[in-house]
């Protein structure tokens, strides 16, 4: 092949590709020896620059350019071969340099333009669209970034300042709520987390990850600006294992066992599934009743489709258990009453206690004792009389007698106050925090039984005189004697004549209608027929009049009634969910200053009613030292976030003929289930009616390529009791002040 390029010294020109300018005639192969200067100007004037040697000028043209010319330099020393100037052009390297400058300038220009355009500029630099719930705040970076609050003028300071992830998290918490420990792992208090860690410790320390340092920022897991449909809650399972270092291959292979889950506590309502299904329901069928045949006869899914709820008492239990509550034939619970007192001894040893039924021989009811204990003097008297036999005070010391007298008058004063003050007087005695239900809608006519003949007919007059320090009225009949037919006029104390004067005809309680002493019936003929009239001798055997129903039978559907036999005012529950009993059980379950009297009421109700037979009594959560009656079966608590979550509703379509027992298999009937409710206030100590869940059942579907095995599929990260969103709206809220003003 023809060779074009010489490399010998004389014919090969020296190339300078690193220079910025190239001779304009180089492409023609006719470049000059000097070449352009650094600014790109042609320096060529002639083919050479003659050199002077003594008195002669010599040609200096290079051999590569033809060597010395025959004519030689001119006499004045100039070259005889002038060269016309060329237009130098840039070298490849220089053009590349210009391209670099040009692209850099374009980049910088674009940046400044983008920054200059305020709104659209921020859109341009926005790292990505926000998720749909946050999209409304996209125009205001300061909603989520503390750095943006200070403005762009401090960008250099902010850029070098301390990490703002935690202060940014506080902005998240303006709307989102994760309890009082949002920056702690699992949003749990340190002590709780430590306790849980010790409980489930694997003996392997957590790596240097987010050990409980309390500085977990929201952005650690929740990465925004990844599009409208990004999943902010998405987190790799491996991240959980930063702390949860127990390694396992998959849910089906090595996942920690379920333990007793979901039976982590006894049921709130005592219900022995095994006993009912195997014994009680077949018995009911034999009796012609229609017991449940399917789980969903008693259970239904909640509104969130997650928990299985228990239907109400009326639907599930009333058919068999309502009679247990109303207890036909029983008297109910003694609330108020006249205790037995050795009146004779007291009258001898003290100024006297006025009228007192000689037949009264009962003890102070727990309710009465509690009401009396609210008065310090009476409380002291009760303490003094702690071991005294009030029905026999013949040998009582003066102190005991005085205390008994104090007690007697306190009882009378209490009843008198209730008679004259009604519910308000009771509420005043119990304290304003007592709910109205605790008064049981006590009717006036029931309390007026205390002033009926044979009880305390002159109660109001006696109490008025006692309080005024005056002698007791003498018009009173002997307590044991039958009362006269007409209402006994009460003595009118000088200081409060209105009370028993005009008021008796007005709003004040009226004396009870007298009735035969032998008949306790409040609804006898006297009450309905007016004052009793002597029966005329019958000329012929009169037909036997039907006897009025006894008071305790009268209130078969529940309510207040007077038991004349033991001088008590009693209450009978009106059915399931009786407000009076429930209120008092709740009140007395809580620790109180008068713990002795309240616990006696709790015990009395628990013994006499059926509430506690089914409703378990747990120790109240710390710091309370009291008890908590579980009135309801487990129900969804939207604000309660637990470590484990499960949706029953989404699993129903997977069930076969075994139905719920696919997972919830009955345990053999055992008395241990019921025993766990007796004298036990720790709900964690229990025996379940069901066998523990079989993890393999879940693993049948929850495979990597099946229903999934992500940790967050069944577990919550943020746990605790809190509302997920903060509601900050104020009534009559004033417009927010403009920032900077």
């Amino acid at each position, binding site marked *: 092949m023809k060779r074009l390029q010489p490399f010998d010294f004389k014919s090969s020109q020296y190339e300078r590709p690193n220079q910025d300018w190239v001779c304009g005639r180089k492409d*023609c*192969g006719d470049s000059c020896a000097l070449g352009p200067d650094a600014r790109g100007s042609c320096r060529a004037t002639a083919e050479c620059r003659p050199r002077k040697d003594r008195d002669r000028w010599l040609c200096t043209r290079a051999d590569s350019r033809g060597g010395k010319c025959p004519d030689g330099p001119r006499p004045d020393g100039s070259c005889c071969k002038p060269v016309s100037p060329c237009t130098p052009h840039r070298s490849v390297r220089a053009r590349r340099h210009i391209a670099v400058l040009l692209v*850099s300038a374009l980049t910088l220009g674009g940046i400044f333009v*983008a920054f200059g355009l305020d709104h659209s500029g921020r859109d341009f630099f926005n790292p990505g669209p926000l998720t749909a719930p946050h999209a409304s705040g996209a125009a205001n970076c300061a909603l989520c970034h503390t750095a943006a609050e200070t403005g762009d003028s401090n960008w250099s300071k*902010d850029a070098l300042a301390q990490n703002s992830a935690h202060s940014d998290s506080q902005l998240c918490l303006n709307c989102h709520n994760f309890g009082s420990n949002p920056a702690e792992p699992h949003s749990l208090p340190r002590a709780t987390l430590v306790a849980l860690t010790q409980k489930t410790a694997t003996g392997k320390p957590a790596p240097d990850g987010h050990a409980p340092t309390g500085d977990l920022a929201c952005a650690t897991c929740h990465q925004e600006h990844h599009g409208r449909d990004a999943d902010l809650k998405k987190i790799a399972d491996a991240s959980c294992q930063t702390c949860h270092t127990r390694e396992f291959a998959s849910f089906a292979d090595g996942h920690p066992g379920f333990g007793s889950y979901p039976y982590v506590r006894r049921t709130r309502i005592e219900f022995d599934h095994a006993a009912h299904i195997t014994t009680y329901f077949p018995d009911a069928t034999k009796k012609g009743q229609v017991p449940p045949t399917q789980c969903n006869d008693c259970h239904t899914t909640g509104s969130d489709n997650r928990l299985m709820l228990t239907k109400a008492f009326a639907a599930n239990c009333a058919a068999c258990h309502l009679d247990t509550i109303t207890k036909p034939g029983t008297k109910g619970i003694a609330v108020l009453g006249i205790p037995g007192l050795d009146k004779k001894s007291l009258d001898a040893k003290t100024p006297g206690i006025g009228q007192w039924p000689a037949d009264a021989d009962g003890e102070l009811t727990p309710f009465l004792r509690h009401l009396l204990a609210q008065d310090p003097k009476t409380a002291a008297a009760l303490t003094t009389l702690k071991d005294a036999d009030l029905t026999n005070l013949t040998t009582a010391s003066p102190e005991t007698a005085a205390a008994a007298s104090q007690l007697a008058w306190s009882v009378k004063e209490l009843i008198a106050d209730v008679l004259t003050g009604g519910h308000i007087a009771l509420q005043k005695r119990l304290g304003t925090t007592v709910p109205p239900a605790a008064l049981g809608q006590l009717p006036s006519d029931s309390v007026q039984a205390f002033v009926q003949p044979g009880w305390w007919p002159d109660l109001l007059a006696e109490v008025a005189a006692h309080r005024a320090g005056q002698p007791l009225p003498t018009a009173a009949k002997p307590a044991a004697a039958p009362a006269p037919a007409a209402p006994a006029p009460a003595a009118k104390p000088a200081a409060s004549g209105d009370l028993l004067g005009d008021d008796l005809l007005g709003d004040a309680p009226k004396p009870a209608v007298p009735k035969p002493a032998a008949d306790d019936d409040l609804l006898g003929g006297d009450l309905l027929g007016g004052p009793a009239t002597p029966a005329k001798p019958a000329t012929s055997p009169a037909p036997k009049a039907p006897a009025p129903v006894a008071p305790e039978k009268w209130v078969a559907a529940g309510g207040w009634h007077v038991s004349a036999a033991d001088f008590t005012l009693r209450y009978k529950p009106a059915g399931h969910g009786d407000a009076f009993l429930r209120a008092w059980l709740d009140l007395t379950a809580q620790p109180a200053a008068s713990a002795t009297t309240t616990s006696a009421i709790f015990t009395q109700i628990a013994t006499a009613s059926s509430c506690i037979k089914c409703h378990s009594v747990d120790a109240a959560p710390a710091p309370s030292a009291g008890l908590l009656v579980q009135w309801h079966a487990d129900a969804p608590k939207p604000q309660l976030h637990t470590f484990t979550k499960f949706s029953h509703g989404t699993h129903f379509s997977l069930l076969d003929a075994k139905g719920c027992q696919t997972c919830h298999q009955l345990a053999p009937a055992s008395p241990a289930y019921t025993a766990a409710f007796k004298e036990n206030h720790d709900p964690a100590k229990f025996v379940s009616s069901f066998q523990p869940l079989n993890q393999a059942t879940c693993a049948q579907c929850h495979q990597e390529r099946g229903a999934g095995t992500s940790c967050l599929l069944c577990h919550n990260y943020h746990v605790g009791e809190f509302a997920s969103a903060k509601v900050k709206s104020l009534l009559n809220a004033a417009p927010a002040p403009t920032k900077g003003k």
Partner: protein
Amino acid sequence: MAATLTSYTRRRILAVCMLTIVAVVVWTWQRRLAISLHPTAMATGLALITTCILLAVFNSRKKLPFLPLLRAATWTQFHIYAGWFSVLLFLLHTGFRLPNGSFETLLASVFALVALSGVFGLYLSRSLPARLTRHGENVIYERIPALRAKLQREVEALVLKSVEETKSSTIADFYAARLKAYFDRPRNFFYYLARNDTPLKNVLGEIRLLERYTNDREHAILAELTECLQAKENLDFQWAGQGLLKYWLFVHIPLTASLLLLGALHGLIALYYVGGIR
């Protein structure tokens, strides 16, 4: 077997092994950070911008040949493998996701263009020199225009000589009609890139057809003309090949400058909103 490996192969194996080890270490480090809920974006971003700056320094190093900073070949090797490493860092930094913000999309696109142009340049630098060497006379790129002009002058002298000696304008007419434009400037750039010599074969085929109408003297001139055509074809091939080896940098280097500017701004914005390096 090791004794049979060339130094080139040994160096490549060593470099690939080192790159693999570093990549595995960095990957493991990033995964460990991510699993332990540390903010990995800041760490990988810092590593990425540092790597990009080191890659860009290679161009500056070429401008300072007098400094005793390792051999240029060593820098080139470092540039190549650090470039691959930067791609890994970029993927770790983005979490293997496509960016969805305008600025970040621009930044990622520029990085992708720089990386792709770098890979293209690596391919050119590995494939073209051998082809250029095999193809014919190796000429200095800057001399090619002058050599082409010189060749054109020789061809024109040859054509004039044919007219004078043969008193025939057959070759001159053929030159004026068919060859002058071919010699005027570089031709068939894309044919050469595609290793397609059809244009030369076509011209040589026309010369062979012309030989049927020419005498022996003209045959000799046509033979010389054919040599000149082949020399011109080689010049064009060298022009295309060497030009490609130079001009791919017109994409790679300016975009690198843009990438550094955009990357620095991206880092500043990240620091501004995150507030300092954790």
